[in-house]
């Protein structure tokens, strides 16, 4: 059987080439991944899906929870990051533990404080489920479903979660012109923020210690746990700023509820005693500067992404009893 693999190209000239091939949103593999992403069948007690902590209306982050929780209200140690433009990322998770989109899928499926499931159980459940037998047959032309199918389907679905239709993007494509306040904010952004939150992805994909006061209840060492390199103590992945009005709360531990808290941290909250910090000095930001920056950051909101029906859970019509 011929398996047709189709990928879409990204023809936005100010965007770099993606690292992960972007799947065709209409492909049956993406449909399978979309279904799996929203299905609590993946968790041990069938209560939590990927979408529980990565909800579309929060830019695929976890609303209103500083630390995300999995099954049985088990609370983890980090804030679920927003899933956006993942095809441009070389590593995944706050500490970069996962080297590919497929490998990343394994982490929440098996982590104790997330879905706490085993691959054996997941595959058994899916292979007994008529819906998945059909979807897997459509996607891969064969059954039973195997680990690689689950990983590929969810990864391909995630690759389609592309946000590049914000007011900022319209400005880059010369379709609109920024207001004076947005222009001021953009200038300040390029001066103070762009080195790490680099345009147009609004992350440079690297890891940094932004000198937050240490939370001794978590004592999260960040990327150090992965690399065993003391220079990486409290280094975390630099998150994208796209759709950040929707992806609150902020920071790897979700400690800030409001963007103004974030600005206050950079302006006057830097932990100058942290020797592995990547930011050497506070950023001098006046109240007016913060207002201008907020105006610019609003322009990173992409409502066509937040409300794109192609990303959301598929609701099947109920059969009459």
């Amino acid at each position: 059987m011929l398996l047709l693999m189709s990928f879409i190209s990204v023809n936005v000239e100010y965007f770099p080439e993606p690292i992960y091939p972007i799947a065709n949103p209409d492909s049956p593999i993406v449909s399978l991944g979309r279904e799996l992403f929203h299905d609590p069948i993946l968790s041990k007690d069938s209560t939590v899906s990927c979408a529980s902590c990565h909800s579309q209306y929060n830019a695929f982050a976890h609303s209103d929870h500083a630390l995300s929780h999995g099954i049985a209200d088990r609370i983890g140690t980090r804030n679920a990051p927003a899933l956006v433009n993942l095809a441009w990322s070389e590593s995944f998770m706050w500490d970069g533990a996962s080297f590919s989109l497929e490998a990343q899928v394994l982490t929440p499926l098996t982590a104790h404080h997330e879905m706490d499931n085993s691959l054996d159980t997941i595959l058994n459940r899916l292979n007994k489920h008529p819906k998945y037998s059909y979807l897997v047959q459509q996607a891969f032309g064969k059954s039973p479903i195997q680990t690689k199918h689950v990983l590929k389907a969810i990864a391909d679905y995630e690759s389609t979660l592309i946000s590049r239709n914000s007011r900022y993007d319209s400005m880059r494509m010369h379709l609109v012109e920024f207001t004076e306040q947005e222009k001021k904010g953009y200038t300040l952004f390029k001066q103070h923020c762009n080195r790490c939150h680099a345009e147009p992805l609004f992350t440079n994909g690297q890891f940094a210690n932004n000198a937050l006061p240490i939370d001794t209840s978590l004592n999260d060492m960040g990327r150090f746990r992965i690399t065993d390199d003391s220079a990486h103590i409290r280094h975390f992945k630099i998150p994208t700023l796209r759709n950040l009005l929707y992806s609150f709360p902020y920071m790897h531990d979700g400690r800030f509820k409001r963007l103004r808290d974030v600005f206050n941290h950079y302006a006057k909250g830097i932990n100058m005693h942290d020797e592995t910090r990547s930011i050497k000095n506070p950023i001098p930001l006046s109240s007016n500067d913060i207002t201008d920056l907020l105006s610019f950051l609003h322009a990173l909101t992409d409502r066509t992404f937040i409300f794109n029906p192609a990303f959301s859970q598929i609701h099947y019509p109920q059969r009459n009893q």
Partner: protein
Amino acid sequence: MIAKTPVVLNSSIVHNNDSIIITSFKAYIVIPTLTDTIVHLLDIEDNLSCSLPDDAESVIIGIDSMQTVRTNFSGALDPIHGMFWTWNSGYINVKIEGISQRSMQRNRIFQMHLGGFTAPHQESIPLRIPRNTSIKLSIDIAPSIDALLNNHQGTVMSPGKDAHELMHILQQSINIEQ
């Protein structure tokens, strides 16, 4: 082998005034050939032998960086075999678990999960082998278990300098026989 005694699953072996029981032994064996790379997962519960192509000149214990990032997550490389770290991507190259009276862990268990695919902790062991012949690879796991119990409280389950030390000891304990 533990010292000179062949290991039998779940059977007690006397070593260093200790009684050691091996409850799990798994290892990846990778065989590069001119045309292909063959991956076997050897498991003491299943089979500790694998076929060797005639043109094979080397075997590698463990999954190296290139193979890790290129994995298709199927066959021997399916994470369902419990040989893939999900909290820190990468394969466990060698897994040895058992019970020792010297272990400080609960129920006297010890766990040695050795792996790592990124610098500076890349932990695969390349071995040159003679062509066109069958070989027997014997590994004395006693020195590494001793080091695990004496220096690491009976548990090493992540990449890093501890895993590197134990992998090095394993490497020194390999004997290739024709």
